[in-house]
């Protein structure tokens, strides 16, 4: 019990549970899952399916933040990878061919990887501050995406491509499997090898890590590459969901949501110790919030305000200082109930 209470994940989990409870109270059907043709449907399934792009981006962001960095270009990379894939399918003679779609996806992800290499080069080799280095692509990336699509919103029809975000496999949305595989790969890579520990060491104290012989350049570079690749896959999921390459709207503001998810999950923006599970919970929290806005029928005009208020409450629930205040207040209440005055002891 004590271990559970002291866990860093306690408060993120409580925040998520609280959100689910609020939703269920507002609309009891929130928890309902129906089976149609052996496929599961329901609000919770939607949340899991729709969270896939943010999940991928936030996983990459976690690793980058652990190295004391930040990647603002994730949304732009999403736009680029989606544009490349759809433009290729659009120009091919066989848009419904599985081979065409595979090549399209490979091209999108490969270009995203190159962009990650570029970000990592700026940060790890040239030593440019991460926020500035990735700002370059954040601004330029959408321009590149517009160039690829000739300034149009490219729409295509391709059943295999559509399957990525909208298809079902063994009763569950395919996008959920993509999320799960990404989570598993990152967890295995970081925690089954020494990568996680070395990443944390570089994030906590770069000079000491260098003197200890850690290849910090490679580790930082790798983090941006991972972030690029994951954003690339996210871009493909996003464009598959709307079956269009929208260079301006794809992944808009997702860098901010990803950073928020990482922080909600208990990873400090100062770098160092990170929690993949925490990020997963953070992403689900944000996606649930977004769904809540729809469920509660909040008018679009006030939804940003609603979102902001909800985020503030969630962050407050997790704040150690608020915990201190509430436990102090509880202690005072108890003391007041005690009849005789005792000498003050902490």
């Amino acid at each position, binding site marked *: 019990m004590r271990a559970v209470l002291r866990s860093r994940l306690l408060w993120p989990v409580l925040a998520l549970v609280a959100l689910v409870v609020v939703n269920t109270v507002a609309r009891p059907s929130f928890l309902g899952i129906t089976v149609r043709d052996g496929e599961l449907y329901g609000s919770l399934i939607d949340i899991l399916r729709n969270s896939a792009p943010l999940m991928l981006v936030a996983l990459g962001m976690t690793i980058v933040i652990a190295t004391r960095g930040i990647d603002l270009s994730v949304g732009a990379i999403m736009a680029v990878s989606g544009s490349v894939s759809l433009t290729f399918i659009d120009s091919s003679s066989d848009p419904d061919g599985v081979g065409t779609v595979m090549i399209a996806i490979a091209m999108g992800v490969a270009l995203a990887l190159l962009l990650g290499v570029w970000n990592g080069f700026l940060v790890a080799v040239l030593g440019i501050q991460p926020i500035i280095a990735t700002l370059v692509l954040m601004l330029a990336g959408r321009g590149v995406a517009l160039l690829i699509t000739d300034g149009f919103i490219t729409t295509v029809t391709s059943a295999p491509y559509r399957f990525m975000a909208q298809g079902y496999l063994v009763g569950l949305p395919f996008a959920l499997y993509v999320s799960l595989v990404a989570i598993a790969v990152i967890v295995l890579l970081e925690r089954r090898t020494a990568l996680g520990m070395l990443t944390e060491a570089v994030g906590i104290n770069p000079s*000491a890590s260098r003197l200890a*012989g850690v*290849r910090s350049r490679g580790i930082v570079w790798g983090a941006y590459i991972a972030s690029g690749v994951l954003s690339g896959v996210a871009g493909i999921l996003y464009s598959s969901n709307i079956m269009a390459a929208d260079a301006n709207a794809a992944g808009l503001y997702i860098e901010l949501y990803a950073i928020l998810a990482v922080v909600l999950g208990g990873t400090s923006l100062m770098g160092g110790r990170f929690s993949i599970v925490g990020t997963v919970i953070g992403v689900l929290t944000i996606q649930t919030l977004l769904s809540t806005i729809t469920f509660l029928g909040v008018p679009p005009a006030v939804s940003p305000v609603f979102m902001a208020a909800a985020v503030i409450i969630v962050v407050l629930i997790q704040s150690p200082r608020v915990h201190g205040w509430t436990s102090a207040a509880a202690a005072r209440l108890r003391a007041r109930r005690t009849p005789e005055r005792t000498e003050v002891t902490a």
Partner: protein
Amino acid sequence: MLQPTATDAVVRMRDITIAFPGVLALDGVDFTLRRGEVHSLMGENGAGKSTLIKALTGVYRIDAGSIVVDGAGRDFHGTADAQAAGISTVFQEVNLCPNLSVGENVMLGNEVRRAWGIDWRATHREAARHLASLGLSLDTRSTLSSHSIALQQLVAIARSMVTSASVLVLDEPTSSLDRSEVEQLFGVMRDLRDRGVAILFVSHFLDQVYEISDRITVLRNGRLIGEHSARDLPRDELVSQMIGRAVAELEAVATTAERTIDRDATPVLRASGVGRRGSIEPSDIEVHRGEVVGLAGLLGSGRTELVRLLCGADRADVGTIAIDGREVRIPTPRHAIGERIAFSSEDRRGEGIIGDLSVADNIVLGIQARRGWMRVVGKEERDRIAREAIEALGVRPANPDTPIRNLSGGNQQKVLLARWLAVEPDLLILDEPTRGIDVGAKADIQRKVAELSAEGLSVIFISSELEEVLRLAQRVVVMRDRRKIGELDSKDVDIDGLIGYIANEGVRAAA
């Protein structure tokens, strides 16, 4: 001198207990501070001195126990509470605003106010009065940073007098002061004591403690060992209370270091003419198998700069380095570790520990970095390495899962030593490994170095304490003004001789 009775107690701390994750920093400690006394708090690093001070000044909350100040029970929620109770603190690093004037610093928050705002002239007059009462005549309109650290410290004390503090806490105030500045500070302290202020004093210098203290309280491993009148506590008794064993152990290190080194064999390291522009002039250094070479010289003489070239921390522009007679390139620390050269930096916090990681992770970091990320040091292997190192070096607390930042300086240093020993180096470079750590840890580290070199490890040992260099090293390389000025056999020279050599730039060797 006053002979205080129990009724004079200004501060009475009882059964103070403070626990950090994995560490019981204070375990039921009692401490009493009386009106008009200078009371020294003594103990090794990690004994709990700083924690006790932080409990008294409201930085930490206590987990159990009681604090009574001026007869009233207190529950400090922050430093402001402690200040309101009349407890003022002057820390080692002066906590004033260096860009403000002396007068503004003294009066900050207590400026003389009139209907139209602050009356600066009256404020400065008031500041001057407070300074004068400490025997200081400073221009109150001069910028604080234009004064020496010593004067800044006195300004900080004057500031605490503005709020008419009844308790003054001085945490290592003398560590960066010279002799005459210490005298000036002590003069002020005596004056305040005679006016009835209770002063809590912490210093690593025993001479100073005996010079100024009326009373001494000794802590060890978070427990109270005893409270004594300074006059009734002999020095060796104090030291053995602090470290919990006889001083003779320190002396025993010296005998192991006395042995002959085979200087005809190929040296483990031979650096010829290595230098770096603007940092160190080309210098030669040789280290043989099983030899401890001391590097002596004043701060800034080039000791650190020279060894940083040998371990790839900085890149040399000239010179060659040969390991076992084979010429090698060492452009990065990684290459150095590949050549089995390990380097422990003098900057423990900035270039040594990985604060948030556990003791075990800190120990295996070197091995893990050499293996690369693919071949992980598994949990079992890591725990075994950590446990062995903790055992061998006496790390306290002996818990491999504690974050290293919770350890005291001496214990952090032991963990770093363990990290470097774990990569099985042929040459170990230790830059100021014993600076700012307590007598016990110092003895442990010295003993370990002597032991390892007897087993064949070559060591370059840098220390500002010449006594330590002479005790451990067979040969001493002397640096001055960013170059090597000579080498001495440590058998042929004593401390005074070495000081003379450093000062007179090798004139003695030429004679």
